[in-house]
């Protein structure tokens, strides 16, 4: 028990309950075998403690993902409220507009792949490295959502309901505490700092049973660029040349964002295409 207590990282009520259950179990083992056999039958205390810590890290990471998704969505709502309350004649400066669109898309991608990972790992044995990756995806989603809101505020002038505008950042702040707590605990565990990659397409296939094709960054850039062209030309009535320029900017954004964020998001191409 002393070795188990020393090896265990988790604290609080969960720790007390786990140690109480293990103590009861060892007492039962000793009643039915001699002391040496009880320790052998129970298993190496370091390994048992590491396994329990990994399980706690995994469940905290999944819980943090739901919280981060709610936080990012609330920030999105506040951002929309900010945009709708902008002065009709307001003209967004290009750098702010670009920052808004880029960070909003990064946030959406990060939260979607985080949710896909969380659903797939629910109830399964997950390594500390996987849990750390989930925490990184959650953190990127929240930070990007807040950057998008900040950029929207910088781009536009107007008067909005302060409660509605502040709701998003407030909820995101609370979500960040949950994500930060999960991440802080996970980082203490052996193997948590290993940088791994995890294909969201493989995750989606594993729990949905659907035949989801793997899409690389180039294909995604083409799809996003096409969407930008159609949106610009069809909805906003831009000229074809202007729409194509928007599409090219969108494609460039996708590729640059992928190059910069593929490591922290666990999306390095060489691993994904091997899937």
């Amino acid at each position, binding site marked *: 028990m002393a070795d188990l207590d020393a090896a265990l990282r988790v604290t609080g009520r969960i720790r007390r309950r786990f140690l109480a259950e293990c103590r009861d179990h060892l007492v039962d083992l000793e009643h039915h075998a001699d002391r040496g056999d009880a320790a052998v*039958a*129970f*298993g190496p205390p370091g390994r*048992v403690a590491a396994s*329990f810590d990994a*399980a706690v890290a995994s469940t905290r990471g999944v819980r943090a993902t739901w919280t981060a998704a709610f936080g990012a969505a609330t920030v999105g709502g506040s951002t929309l409220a900010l945009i709708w309350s902008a002065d009709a004649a307001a003209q967004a400066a290009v750098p702010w507009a670009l920052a808004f669109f880029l960070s909003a898309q990064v946030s959406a991608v990060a939260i979607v792949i985080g949710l896909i990972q969380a659903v797939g790992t629910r*109830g399964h044995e997950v390594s500390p490295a996987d849990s750390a990756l989930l925490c990184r995806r959650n953190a990127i989603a929240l930070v990007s959502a807040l950057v998008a809101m900040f950029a929207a505020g910088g781009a536009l002038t107007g008067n909005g309901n302060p409660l509605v505008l502040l709701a998003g950042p407030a909820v995101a702040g609370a979500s960040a505490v949950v994500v930060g707590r999960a991440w802080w605990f996970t980082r203490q565990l052996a193997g948590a700092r290993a940088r791994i990659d995890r294909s969201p397409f493989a995750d989606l296939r594993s729990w949905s049973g659907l035949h989801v094709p793997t899409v690389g960054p180039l294909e995604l850039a083409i799809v996003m660029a096409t969407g930008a062209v159609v949106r610009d030309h069809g909805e906003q009535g831009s000229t074809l040349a202007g729409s194509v320029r928007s599409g090219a900017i969108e494609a460039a954004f996708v590729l640059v964002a992928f190059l910069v964020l593929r490591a922290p998001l666990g999306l390095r191409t060489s691993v994904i295409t091997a899937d």
Partner: protein
Amino acid sequence: MGSGDLLRGHLDGLLLAVLADEPGHGYELARRVATRSHGDLDVPEGSLYPALHRLEQAGFVSSRWAIADGRRRRVYRRTAAGRRRLASWHEERRSFVHAVDRVLGVAT
């Protein structure tokens, strides 16, 4: 037989299976696994608790403190979601075993 690595992917399913009959605490569940496997599955018994934590957090089992064998123990029971999870685990395991048999050239 029953090395730790081979068992690792199956422990959750084994626990859900032995909880089908009636609730039990960790030591009882370990005994049920050993009894049903006729001692062939050598599970390090401490590894049950991380698995039970995972299953509980996922909603597949629930637990409460109760008096068992004259002592206060944490007793686990399977939920309806756990029953469905066991059924899907059976299906996954069957598909996996058939696929391995085909590769090995074993008649199925």
